[in-house]
């Protein structure tokens, strides 16, 4: 399994006495899109945050291109610059305008010169259709606009993989579409992505793999058709059943 971009072995995370992740095994290849679904509190977000070490795992291994990022002296900041993250609450830098949000990391972390950073940022802002707003501060943007800038910020770092933590959950139904469209385009362009989401139709459309998590473990994972249409695990069935009932009722 040499061509796994990220491989995770027996990952555990506990906060004090509460075990949130109870041994996760997971891998993703370059160009793949995985969606993680599951009920609230199942550990989906914690799992995602463990992948780029915003929450430091209690035990286990995270192999990035075959190298364990949890070993001592591994350059965590460098690893994080390769693993981008898009947050539910956008988290744009409030003290900077849209353009600076997308250039600061390139200039300060990747040590690019400002002009090439700006060029790169403008390219991705254009891609998410936010290049008209480069002068705007985050407080002047709508939720959907903020999220699109956040995606451009992550893309500007030329990350190998992008993690999405419920990117549309804080948006109103109308703006969800614009963000999902951007993500769909990214998936088609071959970007590696791991997406925590509650948008089942979207998950089915874009992903090569769907992972169902409950109570800190991966209950079932496989192709979207297998998981969403013919789930084998009891808990997956229950979750999806409630989802369908919830949506139609």
């Amino acid at each position, binding site marked *: 399994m040499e061509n796994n971009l990220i491989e995770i072995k027996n990952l555990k995370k506990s906060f004090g006495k509460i075990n949130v992740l109870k041994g996760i095994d997971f891998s993703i290849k370059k160009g793949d899109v995985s969606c993680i679904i599951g009920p609230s509190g199942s550990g989906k977000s914690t799992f995602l945050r463990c992948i780029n070490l*915003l929450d430091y795992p209690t035990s286990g291994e995270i192999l990035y291109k075959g190298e364990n990022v949890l070993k001592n002296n591994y350059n965590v900041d460098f690893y994080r610059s390769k693993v981008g993250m898009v947050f539910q*609450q956008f988290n*744009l*830098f409030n003290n900077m305008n849209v353009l600076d949000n997308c250039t600061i990391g390139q200039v*300060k972390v990747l040590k690019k010169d400002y002009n090439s950073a700006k060029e*790169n940022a*403008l390219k991705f802002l254009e891609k998410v259709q936010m290049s008209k707003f480069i002068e705007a501060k985050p407080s002047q943007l709508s939720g959907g606009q903020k999220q699109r800038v956040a995606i451009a910020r992550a893309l500007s770092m030329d990350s190998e993989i992008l993690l999405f933590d419920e990117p549309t959950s804080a948006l109103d139904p109308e703006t969800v579409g614009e963000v999902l469209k951007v993500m769909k385009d990214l998936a088609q362009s071959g970007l590696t992505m791991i997406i925590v989401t509650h948008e089942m139709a979207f998950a089915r459309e874009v992903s090569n793999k769907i992972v169902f998590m409950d109570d800190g473990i991966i209950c079932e994972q496989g192709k979207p058709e297998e998981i969403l249409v013919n789930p084998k695990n009891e808990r997956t069935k229950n979750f999806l059943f409630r989802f369908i009932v919830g949506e139609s009722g």
Partner: protein
Amino acid sequence: MERTFFEWVGYILGHYGSWFLEGTAITLLISLLGTIIGFLIGLGLGSAKKLPRSSSKIKNFFLMILNGLITCYVEIFRGTPMMVQAIVIYFGMQEFMGISFSPTIAGIIIVSINTGAYMVEVVRGGIESVDPGQMEAAKSIGMSHGQAMIYVILPQTIKNILPATGNEFIINIKDTSVLNVISVTELFFVTKSIKGAIFRTYETFIVAALIYFVLTLTVTRLLKMLEKRMDGSKEFVHASSTMPILFLKKPGEKNGK
């Protein structure tokens, strides 16, 4: 000959106006420099207090000691009157270390250290009031803790704590008056001297009170303006759709570490 109240005030301003001006200048100098230096002390030590725990035990031990020292500094200088600090530092330095400053320099040092002690806690609170998501986002694009603090967290912190800093400045303008105990020729000291020369307590101190009031009022207005400016305008300009966007080379080939 008996003068009325206003005649006395006129007499004082006429004869001792330049004394008042000099005293006011010293008061402003000490309180302004003291506030700025104290602000910087607070920014440094307040940020040091928020350093993340590391995985190495030795580093954590030093962090703990650093934290303890900062706490001692804050508690001691917040817990004793500035007048006492002034005497202890000014005369103590002379007696035990043979170091003597001019009273004005000593005054600036004392006000700075004192303001710093208050600002440490203000800065800590200011850092904590910034949404934790900002730090997470900074880390997620690979910034180190230091970079995240400098480019993302502290700019927002400073904006948050500007009102509290202005408050400190106004308090300092008034509290420099205690420095008269080490003979700093600030406004209060000058006023006392003038009173000694003409034996008119009431009129002389009314003039001093007015000067203090005008100073603090002006500073308050100026700070309000500064805060408004830092908030920025509510509008932004749409970048022109004809703006040239260049796609010259593929992104990020040469950016490895």
